[in-house]
């Protein structure tokens, strides 16, 4: 196999990586807000549920969560696992796991906004959801962007864990080709692809940060 063929195969794997990456962000960024708000709820039951969820998701390996969610239906109910379920289970595990991390970031961001902002909204007559979406969230996003960037870059690399449930993303492609060809080159190329992609992600995040720089506190 020449380098070009290897690269084409790896890029096919990268498309799957990209799918997991994008799918996880689309699902977990909003879900994280929900979990974060639940965590801050004054209702003990609601905040307790969120607290336990976050604790389990952050306290156990993502690899284990992937395996548990993927094989769960078979071991619990004897359901045969389809290949569509494979990618769905993968996305589900990633979204749940990352929403827990994002929830904690949103929570810390929300708590860092001065109380006067909420009070001003109260006096002006904003409802709770108007206060959140119009006034708090835009300010929270600016504050949490650096922490978010960290998680998002980690996510790019974490997608490689999908290989434990047999999804042919970039990492499993590299491993398969390397074994077949008895060569290090596929790994080196995979590393290069991850790194280039992360550089792009970093650029985009920096740009957003710059765009949010129009105001200070």
């Amino acid at each position, binding site marked *: 196999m020449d380098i070009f063929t290897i690269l084409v195969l790896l890029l096919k794997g990268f498309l799957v990586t990209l799918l997991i990456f994008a799918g996880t962000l689309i699902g977990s960024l909003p879900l994280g807000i929900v979990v974060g708000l639940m965590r801050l709820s004054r209702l003990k039951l609601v905040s307790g549920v969120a607290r336990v969820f976050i604790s389990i998701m952050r306290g156990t390996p993502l690899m284990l969560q992937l395996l548990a969610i993927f094989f769960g239906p078979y071991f619990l109910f004897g359901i045969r696992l389809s290949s569509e379920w494979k990618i769905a289970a993968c996305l589900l595990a990633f979204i749940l796991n990352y929403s827990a991390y994002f929830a904690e970031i949103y929570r810390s961001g929300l708590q860092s906004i*001065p109380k006067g902002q909420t009070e*001003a909204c*109260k006096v002006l007559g904003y409802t709770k959801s108007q206060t959140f979406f119009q006034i708090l969230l835009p300010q929270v996003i600016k504050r949490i962007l650096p922490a978010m960037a960290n998680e998002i870059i980690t996510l790019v690399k974490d997608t490689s864990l999908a290989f434990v449930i047999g999804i042919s993303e970039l990492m499993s492609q590299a491993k398969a080709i390397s074994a077949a060809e008895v060569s290090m080159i596929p790994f080196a190329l995979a590393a290069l692809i991850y790194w280039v992609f992360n550089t792009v992600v970093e650029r985009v995040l920096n740009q957003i940060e710059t765009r949010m720089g129009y105001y200070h506190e």
Partner: protein
Amino acid sequence: MNNVLLKLSAANKSFGNNHILKDIDLEIHEGKVNVLIGPSGAGKSTLLRALSLLESFESGELSYKDIKVCTNVDGKAIYDEQAVQKSKEIFGLVFQQFNLFPHLSALENITNPLCVVKKMDKDVAKQKALCVLDKLQLLSKKDFYPWQLSGGQRQRLAIARALAMEPEILYFDEPTSALDKQLVTDLSKTIKDLAQDNLTMLIVTHDLDFAREVADQVYYMEAGRIIEEGTSSEIFERPKQSLTQAFIS
């Protein structure tokens, strides 16, 4: 022309064992500059926050015009959520720290509440905001963000934001605390202009010179009680209570 805008009776409030407000009665009539003075720790700001519905009274009755915000049931103040929401159209508050929205421009700080709370059309809101900004000499700063404004300008923007909502009574919490002498003079002028337009105000301050300058009606508060009330000249020139005499001399 002398309607009661605000009526508070037998109001109490404590934080833990600390009894902050003791049996407060207060009636504010339309069209006057009311100033609440007193030493720090007297409970002035807590009273203003409770009137702004940021804190709740433990007992007592509060109504804005004909809206009964809270009533006494078995010695406890029970708030009516709908009345709370409705009464917010009657009062406005200029915070001590202004609490402007840092991510919105001066113009947007005014249009956002108009569009979001009053459901006003965008263009109508903008016209209204420009008009209020002009009134407070901030028209040239309309596209500035709060961090680009000076302390005095920020306060005027906070006043503009509150005014645009067309309150019938405007509250000020310690408005002179962040201002130098010149700015206090400017603020006095702004307040007198607003009074000319028949806006009712209630101002909490410990700045006696400023109070003397702007007040029509003065309330003296100490240790959680309103000890004396009267016109500006009654309180500042012929105070009856010894505590008031001690404070203003």
